[in-house]
């Protein structure tokens, strides 16, 4: 996919992945790939800065859970109520945008 498209919608993708359940970094990446049928191939380096930014913005909170392979607790990300609100708003914006692009793209046909 076009990396620019991914970058522009990274927050929506991450918030959507975390809507169902709390996950840690590596699993978030896998989940995004699986649920998009392999469409979203993250450039992994962009994942963690985005997660930390969303946490600082109060859209996510973190929780240390089971031990990971490095012998330290895995850091899970959970959606906050504010994160849910933002997700709903981004979803609505996306639908509106997608509808407009669809109408425009198909208007000639």
């Amino acid at each position, binding site marked *: 996919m076009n990396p620019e498209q991914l970058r522009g919608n990274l927050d929506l993708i991450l918030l959507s992945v975390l809507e169902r359940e709390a996950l840690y*970094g*590596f699993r978030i990446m896998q989940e995004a790939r699986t649920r998009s049928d392999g469409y979203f191939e993250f450039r*992994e*380096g962009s994942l*963690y800065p985005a997660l*930390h930014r969303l946490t*600082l913005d109060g859209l996510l909170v973190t929780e240390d859970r089971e031990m*990971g392979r490095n012998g330290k607790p895995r850091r899970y990300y959970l959606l906050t109520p504010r994160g849910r609100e933002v997700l709903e708003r981004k979803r609505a914006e996306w639908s509106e945008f997608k509808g407009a692009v669809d109408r425009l793209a198909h208007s000639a046909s």
Partner: protein
Amino acid sequence: MTELTSQGHDELQHYLSRATRGLWGRQREQVRSELEEHLLEHAGGLIVFGTHPDEALSRAIRELGPPERMCSAMNQVYLMPKVIQFSAFSACCALLVTLSLSLPGQGHAQVAVTNLNVDKPVCAVSSAGMKSSNMIEVLSQKGNLYCYRFRSGNSSYYFDLNSLERTLKPLGVTVSRLGNRTALKFPDARQSTTLRTALDRNGDRFARLQELPFNFVGSGLPVTVTGWTNPVVQVGRISFTLGDASAPAPASVIYESVLLDVIHDLNLGGQGVAVSSRANPASPKLPYFNHTVHVDAPAGTVIGIFSRDARGLPLIDEAPVGAGGRVSLYAPREKLRFVTDAAELTPHLSGGRGQALLVRLTGLIASPDQRQKGKYVIIRPLEEASDGVR
């Protein structure tokens, strides 16, 4: 845990160190741990499918992307609001060109300071013997040599030598390294001054903040410190700020070192000295009396106090003058009378009062002539006595 060869381990640590450069304290530890876990899990998955552990790790690292990019992105998240119009990418370049936390608008370069807990035993010779107490735990004894550790942790303030180098180079200071020593040649200096690395954590090198006055004395230039939190250090005409709002650097650690020199200049040392260690968060509750003293000095001036306890042991403390010329200082005696001659400081009460001597610190912390006189002025407070409170 994923088993790595020593080569893989080194590669991993090198990557993590570079990717988290510029982050601080617990924040850095958390990011480091998270990236480490990511890489080990990714590599673990590849190993299951038959990839050699080292190759699996290298591939996981490649797919996570260059450490400079990760470092840049993380610094944008955590530091950019404080570092206005500063290129986070250049901050993370392998050549360590920047990340000096420079604040051009304020006219001062900035050097990172951090509080680190070094849980290494301390060993000392004691002819009087040492026992475990509520402050220390004696771990071993061999003859008169005792090794012990502090129960509350042995935390100290350190300044980041990599950050110092990156900050000073653009200001015209020549930097060279030899082993664990860093030589700095300031533009107006006749000679280099040498700093020793006290602590090296995966390439992040630190020197003790309390040794800062001695670190620059070799330059032969006057070195001054102004301010109490995040002080400004000036070496010749070069100046930089220690720490920032998110990582305060306590100047009291530096002033305490200066007062330790002054105490020898006043001939008060000899059998040991006690310090109040105001800046050490691990310090137990201080068993001293707090004296609020009125002095004729502008707010912000740092005042030092010398006094003796009943055993004759000198105590030093220091604090900045606040509103109305008042400064709060610790002393081992509840009632004090102020003197201006160090010879009058005795372990004995006189008229029911112990004695104390006040000095005003000038800000000079390292003198070209290596004498102490220019660093302090003995002062007399506006009241000749003080009653302290616990």
